[in-house]
């Protein structure tokens, strides 16, 4: 009996120390595919390997033997103790495996719910497997369905909505203040790593000029070069407030770098154009009192973290709707898979031919003037025999050993040739 089997581990079952022992990436992945595909009990196979998971997905007629083979293979590939590995591995079969693939592709199984990268990684793994010709009818269908499901989950639920990182949260807020960030001037005070990351995100959103003010001018200069901006001396900060729109601050200063009076004095010069402060320093650089001034908005690191937590909760709520879409797809996939069995295919084929024959028979008999019951019975007998004879060889072929190895290919072709799925 052909079955889909999935064996692997992810961030929930295995710590990173274990996951990195077995990362099947690049050339290793291709090799792994080759050696797995060579095994006689494996008819289709692909390997998904990301930083959060290593999974082997395969189609087999002998599940137990294939499972053992995969476990042995993973043990051989890994540098970790066998017992640890065995404890971390999960094994899913049939519908459960299908559901798992759909959930992984839709990012419902990700460490960061709704993150978009995993779909790309699965597509890449699938591309590699098709290049190695290690997939067949079942995996092809499964993967294409999973891309479809992932797309549906993304577009029909809010699972990918709203920022879940500090930089994105800041950008989302910026958009609610400025509309478009295009052309907005950015002032970076201090040179922390997180601040730099945030500025890079802003640049990707096509902000205008970037200015960097750092206590050590030299470091500021280096950073400004990296960000293709302009370096300022630290004393120029209050002057620069007159021009900047978005200020990101992350100095190690123990006192406020920008005070309420600073901002109040530049506001008039700015003609009250809004100022958005993102304070990611601890202790804080930006006087929180500035938030009370009109057209000035201050968000510190805790505010941003709170937003992220809220957004994660939202994503979790949306994930429930995503699971429903997955459930639906799992049922559909099972129906398709069941149709790939020999008996339903032959039944469907027979029904189709009989339908055609009966229709034509009725038409012909209807056109004849003289006909007796006996004549009619004879015609019916003849057509029935025709169908039987025509179907004999295909039936024997599909039921017997004519299909070398992969019966599902021929079943699939049969269904397509005769349009049995409609």
């Amino acid at each position, binding site marked *: 009996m052909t079955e889909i089997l999935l064996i692997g581990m992810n961030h929930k079952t295995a710590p990173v120390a274990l996951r990195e022992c077995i990362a099947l990436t690049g050339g290793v992945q291709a090799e792994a595919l080759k050696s797995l595909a060579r095994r006689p009990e494996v008819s289709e196979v692909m390997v998904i390997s990301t930083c959060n998971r290593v999974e082997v997905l395969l189609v087999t007629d002998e599940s137990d033997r294939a499972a053992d083979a995969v476990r042995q293979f993973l043990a051989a590939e890994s540098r970790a103790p066998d017992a640890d590995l065995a404890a971390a591995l999960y094994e899913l079969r049939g519908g459960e495996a299908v559901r798992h693939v759909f959930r992984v592709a839709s990012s419902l199984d990700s460490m960061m719910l709704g993150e978009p990268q995993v779909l790309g990684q699965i597509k890449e793994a699938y591309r590699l497997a098709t290049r190695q010709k290690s997939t067949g009818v079942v995996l092809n269908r499964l993967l294409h369905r999973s891309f479809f499901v992932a797309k549906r989950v993304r577009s029909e639920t809010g699972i990918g909505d709203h920022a879940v990182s500090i930089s994105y949260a800041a950008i989302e*807020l910026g*958009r*609610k*203040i*400025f*509309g478009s960030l295009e052309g907005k001037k950015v002032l970076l005070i201090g040179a922390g790593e997180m601040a730099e990351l945030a500025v890079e995100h802003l640049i990707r959103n096509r902000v205008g000029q970037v200015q960097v003010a750092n206590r050590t001018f030299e470091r500021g200069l280096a950073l400004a070069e990296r960000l293709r901006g302009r370096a300022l001396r630290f004393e120029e900060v209050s002057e620069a407030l007159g021009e900047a729109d978005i200020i990101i601050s992350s100095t190690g200063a123990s006192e406020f770098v920008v005070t309420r009076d600073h901002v109040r004095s530049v506001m*008039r010069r*700015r*003609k*009250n*154009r*809004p100022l958005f402060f993102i304070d990611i320093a601890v202790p804080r650089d930006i006087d929180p009192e500035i*938030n009370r001034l*009109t*057209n000035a*908005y201050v*968000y510190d690191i805790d*505010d941003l973290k*709170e*937003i992220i937590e*809220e957004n994660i909760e939202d994503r979790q709520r949306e994930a429930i709707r995503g699971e429903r879409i997955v459930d639906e797809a799992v049922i559909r996939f099972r129906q398709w898979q069941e149709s790939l069995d020999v008996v339903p295919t032959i039944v469907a084929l027979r029904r189709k031919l009989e339908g055609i024959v009966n229709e034509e028979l009725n038409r012909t008999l209807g056109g004849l003037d003289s006909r007796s019951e006996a004549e009619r019975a004879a015609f019916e007998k003849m057509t029935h025999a025709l169908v039987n004879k025509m179907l004999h060889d295909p039936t024997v072929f599909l039921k017997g050993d004519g299909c070398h190895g992969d019966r599902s290919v021929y079943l699939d072709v049969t269904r397509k040739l005769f349009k049995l799925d409609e």
Partner: protein
Amino acid sequence: MQLLMVTTTVLYLLSTVGYFLYLFLQREYLHRAGTALLLTGLVLHSAGLLMETIAVGHLPVKNLSETLSLVGWALAGVFLLVQSKFRIKVLGIYAAPLAALVMVFASQLPRETAADASLFASAWFVLHILSVFIGEAALALAGGVGLLYLIQERAIKTKKRGFFFRRLPSLDLLDTAGYACLVIGFTLLTVGLATGFVYAKAIWGRFWSWDPKEVWSGITWLLYAVLLHERLTVGWRGRRAAIMAIVGVGVLLFTFFGVNFLFKGHHVRFTQW
């Protein structure tokens, strides 16, 4: 005619329902439905007004019922223009019910003619009425946009991003849209007042007669003039501009209704009931 107006009112009400459903459910088709209903209502409304104008030979503003109807028409029209330009999708929850409410009131009021029809037969009069009404509709919308601005600003300031935060556009867009409404409204109001003076001169022989409506219109005009001036010179934008726009709507409402009920004067007749 009556049927046309009833249909219009019903369409405005349905549009209100559409916009409110959109606010809660955030489905794009609801927004489109709200807009389509309002637009259909506006077309019928325009047809009704046009027919009435042709039938009686002048703009139908003889009583409060008719003036209110014209207010509803101006609101719906200006709102649709603003929406097509600025795409503030939730503004419909302000404009559509306002237009609908005005129409419901209009339909409940008696329709006897109070004013002397001979006053209406002048191009100056038509210009005066249309620019004042459309201008005031734009200013009313500026108030609505201001309200949305205050809601959104509060959400960002208090860092409590609730129901409206996600549904409202950026502060910048709200501010720009409010400003645009203000400029259009103020310009038309100015034109309306100026043509009013000319018209007054033509029939009463004087530009200004200390009629309460004239006085309050002057006050309204001054208020908006100050607001615009401050914006252009020192950048009165954002919160303060929004609050002023809302205050402006209050004064506007008083000028439109309050003056008629509390004082007497030559404008009263047009809004008698």
